[in-house]
């Protein structure tokens, strides 16, 4: 099995695993971090240490990090929380057609509650430009929600140019940084992003935990979505999952340490993969050639029907350009937004590399893909 789906999830980093163990062992630590006794205080201390580790990865203050159950919850909290606090009356939100479902579905839910949303269309390379966003602002725009790196194409949005300009105009900015964290340097100390979502299991941490950055200066105000105990400064109630949090903290620390070497290494492997695949004619890169995260490569293969292509690549774990449930064979809405038709979108593969990806993995996978595509093309009437 060659695993090339790191954008979907990643294996636990050994450092995260080791850090979590004492908090999982039956004879180990298990205190509730909110309890006022020795085991509780030890747990609280470990949680705060993890909070510092996450903050360090993104240039934030520890007090600006809220723990959640994952990026889906972080995105829900950011959008529902900010808009509920401001009030939905006459509110307008700017986002894009290619955001993650946890943003799109949340915005659609809020539209039913009366919110107006504009979903911008990216360019053919999958990027939203800051001028495009600024032009779409209205006097009622309360919030802009944009992902930093698109999870399907790896295309990087120019958040750093956009952010100060939105601050100038008094518009809140929420950034889904799930695929950016640990891949690109992020420094929120620069001051212009108000809310930022993170996911642990996309960067070597465990599943079921994430974080939301909530700026303190100027203060980003949120209405809590989970009530009951007032944890996380009243913004997110619920006993903290100490072991998960420690795993996330340590994963962030590891990725922070390794990023200067890992990012170029992975980018190199991604480029090698693309070079090998380019032996095939009639293939298309989905995304931007330059402005892209190091770990994602999305390619459409003309003449290779998607389901057959996947069936031939059973030993390569990749993501496809369609949701492959037998009931609804939907083409990827992201690839459709880039202008790919249903057929080409369905004949697409997203390769995403990571810490455990080797040169051999890339050579072997590209070999299998080239063989499979040729096999299928030879069979076309």
């Amino acid at each position, binding site marked *: 099995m060659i695993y090339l789906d790191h954008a979907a999830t990643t294996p636990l980093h050994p450092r995260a695993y080791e850090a979590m163990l004492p908090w999982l062992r039956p004879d180990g630590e298990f205190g509730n971090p909110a309890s006022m006794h020795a085991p509780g205080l030890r747990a609280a201390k470990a949680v705060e240490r993890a909070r510092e580790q996450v903050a360090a990865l993104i240039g934030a203050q520890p007090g600006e990090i809220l723990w959640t159950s994952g990026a889906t919850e972080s995105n829900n909290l950011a959008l529902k929380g900010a808009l509920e606090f401001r009030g939905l009356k006459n509110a307008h939100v700017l986002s894009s057609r290619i955001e993650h479902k946890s943003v799109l579905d949340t915005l659609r839910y809020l539209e039913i509650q009366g919110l107006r949303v504009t979903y911008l269309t990216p360019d053919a390379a999958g990027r939203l430009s800051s001028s495009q966003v600024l032009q779409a602002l209205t006097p009622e725009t309360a919030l802009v929600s944009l992902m930093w790196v698109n999870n399907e194409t790896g295309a990087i949005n120019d958040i750093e140019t956009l952010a100060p300009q939105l601050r100038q105009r008094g518009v809140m900015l929420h950034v889904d940084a799930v695929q950016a964290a640990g891949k690109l340097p992020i420094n929120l100390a620069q001051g212009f992003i108000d809310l930022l979502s993170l996911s642990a299991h996309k960067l070597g941490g465990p599943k079921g935990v994430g974080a939301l950055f909530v700026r303190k200066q100027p203060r980003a105000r949120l209405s809590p979505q989970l009530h009951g105990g007032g944890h996380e400064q009243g913004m997110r109630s619920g006993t903290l999952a100490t072991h998960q949090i420690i795993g996330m903290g340590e994963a962030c620390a590891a990725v922070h340490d390794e990023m200067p070497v890992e990012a170029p290494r992975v980018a190199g492997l991604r480029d090698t993969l693309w070079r090998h695949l380019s032996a095939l004619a009639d293939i298309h890169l989905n995304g931007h050639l330059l402005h892209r995260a190091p770990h994602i490569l999305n390619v459409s293969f003309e003449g290779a*029907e998607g389901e*057959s292509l996947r069936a031939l690549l059973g030993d390569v774990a990749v993501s496809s350009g369609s949701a492959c449930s037998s009931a609804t064979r939907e083409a990827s809405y992201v690839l459709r937004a880039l202008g790919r038709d249903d057929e080409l979108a369905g004949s697409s593969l997203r390769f995403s590399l990571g810490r455990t990806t080797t040169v051999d993995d890339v050579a072997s996978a590209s070999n299998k893909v080239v063989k499979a595509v040729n096999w299928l093309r030879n069979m076309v009437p």
Partner: protein
Amino acid sequence: MSSNVFGYAEPLWQRFSRPVHAGGWPETEAGVRTGQAGSRSARFVLRLQVKGAQARFKAYGCPTAIAVGEWLCERIEQDGLTSASRISARDIRQALEIPEDKTHCALLGEDAIKTLLKP
């Protein structure tokens, strides 16, 4: 050939992974009969050809589509074209254990073999 990780039914997977009848002849070649069904927009194109006692197919589509092409060629070679002309979509579905959501593959297979017999 990859392993059957998506759990296709065995009779289907066998034929998808070893389509020994894949291929064909130029349509204008003497003694070649050609039949075709489906379209690119339907995500299924099946071309069946017969030359003497041999049957060949080419297909664009999902594993079920390719398995249907292979199975039809087997039937033609084993039972003869006339007998094979009586094959229905139901026969195809049964033989390859095709699930309901892939019924169209069986229907197009039936169409393809019927066009093969058109004069």
